[in-house]
């Protein structure tokens, strides 16, 4: 279907038409290349702007050491003389919070989405199926601020009253206050947010598994679940990977909802706290940027924020590219009738 394989438009009108065509092609081509310029520009400028934060801290930027919020405060209050700028930062709690929330949410979502997709494709009664598909599309369209609102007004108070006991509060009182905003709520709502994307991709993939394999398995006396698990799921493994990668990119970039429900404290939840671990707050990189958006024009604070953005940009660019590449290889796998 690509233009290269079409018969080229004949130069019916002579040289003039040729030139117009060429002009149009060049203009549109320039427009398309603008996307690449945009990405390059983003990467270069954000990196450049955030570079001072990296250079002043070296590799220790990624390490741990002290309270991130305090360090950010110091940077914000730094003297206005460029020679005296304060850059000291140990961003580990933020990086750890990001990875923790994203990783756990994607892991849960993958399992849940695969199960839900199997349900939609194979086991749902017909009328229920007709309801679920628009429902999934609907969930994907709900703005994150609405998820955040319900989270902060309903889920967080519920967690605060029902899951946080006095004793658990005391056990960590010397480090952190537990008020319900926590990674538990953050992960829970994030899972709800990224599942629709994954379900849409996986359902499509399941439906594209060739009938001949399914019928072959059923004709051998294998029940519906087994056939689904051993033939279909196996065949769509690349699609599941692609869906997970895309979901990870989405989760990484989620700023608003997590800022509302996961706590606005740059704290690194401690697994050694046992179950209380889940009730501790954290703040991923994206939320940190949004929470501190007023300070973006103030150096060196702005530069530190841009450093965070650079990390986010590089990771999400890499993930999106990986997801796209995975989806391309997956479609070649099923299109060729091997």
């Amino acid at each position, binding site marked *: 279907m690509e*233009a*290269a394989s*079409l018969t080229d*438009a004949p130069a*019916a*009108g002579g040289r003039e038409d*040729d030139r*117009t065509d060429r002009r*149009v*092609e060049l203009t*549109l*081509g320039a427009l*398309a*290349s603008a*996307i690449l310029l945009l*990405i390059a520009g983003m990467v270069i*400028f*954000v990196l450049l702007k955030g570079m001072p934060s990296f250079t002043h801290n070296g590799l220790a930027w990624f390490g741990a050491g002290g309270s991130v919020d305090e360090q950010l405060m110091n940077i914000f209050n730094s003297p206005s003389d460029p020679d005296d700028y304060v850059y000291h930062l140990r961003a580990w709690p933020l990086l750890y919070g990001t990875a923790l929330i994203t990783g756990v949410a994607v892991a849960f979502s993958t399992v*849940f989405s695969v*199960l839900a997709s199997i*349900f*939609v494709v194979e*086991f749902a009664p017909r009328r229920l199926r007709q309801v*679920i598909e628009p*429902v*999934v*599309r*609907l969930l994907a*369209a709900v*703005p994150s*601020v*609405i998820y955040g*609102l*319900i989270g*902060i*007004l309903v889920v967080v108070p519920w967690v605060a009253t029902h899951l946080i006991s006095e004793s658990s509060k005391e056990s960590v009182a010397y480090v952190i206050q537990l008020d319900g905003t926590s990674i538990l709520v953050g992960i829970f709502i994030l899972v*709800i947010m990224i599942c629709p994307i994954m*379900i849409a991709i996986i359902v499509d993939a399941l439906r594209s598994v060739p009938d001949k394999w399914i019928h072959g398995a059923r004709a051998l006396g294998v*029940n519906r*679940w087994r056939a689904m*698990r051993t033939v279909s799921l196996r065949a769509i493994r690349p699609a599941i990977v692609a869906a997970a990668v895309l979901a990870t990119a*989405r989760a*990484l*970039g989620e*700023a*608003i909802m997590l800022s*509302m429900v996961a706590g*606005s404290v740059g704290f690194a939840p401690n697994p050694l706290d046992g179950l209380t671990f889940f009730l501790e707050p954290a703040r991923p990189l994206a939320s940190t940027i*949004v929470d501190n*958006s007023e300070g973006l*024009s103030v150096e060196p604070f702005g530069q530190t*924020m*841009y450093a965070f*953005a650079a990390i*986010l940009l590089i990771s*999400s660019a890499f993930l*999106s*590219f990986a*997801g*796209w590449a995975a989806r391309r290889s997956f479609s070649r796998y099923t299109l060729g009738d091997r």
Partner: protein
Amino acid sequence: MKVRVPGRPGDRLASLRRTGPASAWSVGDRIGLGLAWIAGISLCVVAATIVGYMAWKGLQFLHLEMLTTSPEASMDQSQSGGFFDPIIGTLLLTVIGIAIAIPVGVGIAVWLTEYGRPAGLARAVESGIEIVAGTPSVVLAIFGLLVFQQTFMGLFSFTAEGGAVFGRSFITAGVMMSVVALPMVIGSTREALNAIPRHVREASYALGKDRASTIRRVLLPSARSGIATGATLGMGRIAGDTAIVVILLGASMTITPEGGFLGLFRGTGSTLTSYVYNNSPAGEGNAPEKAYAAAFVLLLVVLFLNFVVGLISKRSEPKWS
């Protein structure tokens, strides 16, 4: 009369072959089935809860005058003012964003499907679109800030006395919103263009039309519904985005135009999303009732746009078969 056919040599393994009319579902299979059902049902439950709860709370707190009154700064937030300005803000941003995204997106889509040379560039652009689609809107927002705070971009926003460009305005936010909507416009348009069979193009060329006018006169009109779908999806995404608004639209609750021509566009304001954010416990205000009301309106807007998408795609049944 039945005579049994003698068995095969391997029948000492018959126990493995004949499992008898026992149930074909093992315990593991049943657990799997059960889990699948649980997943499916909980999906429905969650969706119903979200929509239902928002509707309940929203209707509880929504008064019609909220839609027409501007926000007021007052001590008792729960009584005063509405969110007329934020509604206008959402509309304005959506219009600006999609007005930029449609021509740019359609142009890029056309290039990808109808031209696409050299092939390496086309592939790079394709992966570029994916990367843009996956970029968090926070990052797009602060990149936009970076760009529009440069002095030569001063005409897009307010410039303070000291020479510092504010960089935040409707137009700057609108431009970045168009980037957010772009992948959807491109994707839908490409799909629509690819669905047009080859013979339509060949017929047009055979009549002596060159590629550019074929595209303009024949292909694009047929791809209308695809473009509309992409645009509507993009609008939904723009209307629901908060990060760009928080960072690139300035902090004023009411619409504050800048002076001069196009003052409205160079001014700041708020949208439904930033209004909800600000009125929630996470923001400065603490008026959850207004937050619910505004969120409900926002949800209705987004659902409506989604519904429109469904309508468009249903109405444009494939005409090419």
